[in-house]
């Protein structure tokens, strides 16, 4: 399906949108449901392109996210590096999973990420978060198929425009 190399511009655009969605103000009730947008975007680009996302880029994007979000410097860097590592490792398998199975593996990835975050929280000595802490992976999984289709569509239309 993908024959031509994708442009980094498309990736940067989707990343920018994901970062905006991460920081966008939501009423406190909805805030708990906010998925880990940047992770979802990175999983997509890891799966669909060969070698466009590497660990170094994931690290830098994570640092950027930490600086913007005011979290502990290196927190998101660690989480995204591990995520990208896992996706590139199992890329060949994940790519050919049927959609529901892929969504399940995305769930596993996001859940793993939350567990890492929980580990860091407990290392810092902060109190353990409430049950709402586990909502974002669920929301992310439910969003995944739609996000996948939408990103496919974005990429296809960018490529079409470039070739015409």
């Amino acid at each position, binding site marked *: 399906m993908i024959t031509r190399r994708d442009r980094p511009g498309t990736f940067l655009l989707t990343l920018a949108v994901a970062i905006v969605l991460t920081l*966008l103000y939501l009423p*406190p009730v909805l805030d708990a449901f*906010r998925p880990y947008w940047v992770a979802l975007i990175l999983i997509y680009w890891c799966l669909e392109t060969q070698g466009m996302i590497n660990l170094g880029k994931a690290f830098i994007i994570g640092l950027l996210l930490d600086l913007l979000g005011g979290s502990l410097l290196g927190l998101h860097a660690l989480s995204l590096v*591990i995520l990208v*590592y896992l996706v590139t*490792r199992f890329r060949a398998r994940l790519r050919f999973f049927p959609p529901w199975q892929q969504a399940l593996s995305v769930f596993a990835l996001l859940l793993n990420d939350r567990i890492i975050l929980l580990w860091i*929280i407990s290392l*810092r000595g902060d109190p353990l978060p409430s049950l709402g802490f586990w909502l974002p992976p669920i929301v992310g999984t439910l969003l995944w198929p739609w996000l996948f289709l939408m990103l496919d569509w974005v990429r296809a239309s960018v490529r079409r425009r470039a070739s015409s």
Partner: protein
Amino acid sequence: MVTGGSGAGTKFFGPAAQTARLMLYGLLAIVLMAMDQRGHYVDAFRNQVAYLTEPVYHVVEWPVRAMRNLFGQMQSHRSLRQENSDLREALLGQKGSLQRLETLNEENRRLRALIEGAQGQAFDYQFAELVRVDLDPFSHKVMVDRGSGDGVEVGQAVIDGAGVMGQVEEVHLHFSTIRLISDPNHALPVQINRTGLRTVAFGSGVTGALLMPSVPRQADVREGDLVVTSGLGDRFPGGYPVATITSINRGKGQTFVTVEATPLAALDRGREVLLINAPAKEVPATQVPTVEKEEQALPDEKEAGGDET
């Protein structure tokens, strides 16, 4: 050896090299986190980068601002008039109570002059609005739209209409970040308004609760008591309301009771805040010659400097 890894890395693409790279980056991230947590080694770096991050915040805030303007324009004339008259009524009520406050203030000053000479000070306030950007939910920070350009300084106390919110932690040109009192690493010197008992209120990590772990067992504390700042620690001026006590846990065989309190300020949903400009170096207003209770009061009052991670 592994290369730095910022290149495309086609040469070292084997799984072993990849794992080594994962280790490298993971280690780097952990070192950074430790540096951020333990000392303030990375603060300078954060300040440098603020020039890059500031435009991003503006972009993110733009849709919210646009929405608000749109709603503002759609509000009907009548509802505005209604709101206007409501506000006028509220203002009148507040003016009434302020008049009494003025006389009380005067009386207070006279009494203080009689006792010691420590004087109550008048504070200047600076209005600021929260920047509508959601920071990391575990960071316990909010941003306001005033920065060093408006004379904001690190350490200034921040309150909203109902009570103390936190203190200014980083100042950039056009915005500054505020550490909320709900942060588990934040300690706020307080006293219980009814009895004058001094203690320290720590953040609990949840926006709806503060903890006071070091109240002596025999102390006179009741549910519903108002907790105000004590003015010790030289960071928060004294006498501002902080929280009301919601529960008191008198566990058996413990020297201290754990008191839980609900902050009065709208930590997670406020919109406007006031930054307090403290007048230069004076004795905090609340250093009243003390109640005897204070002897037993607090082992760790000294460490209650304000923040510190």
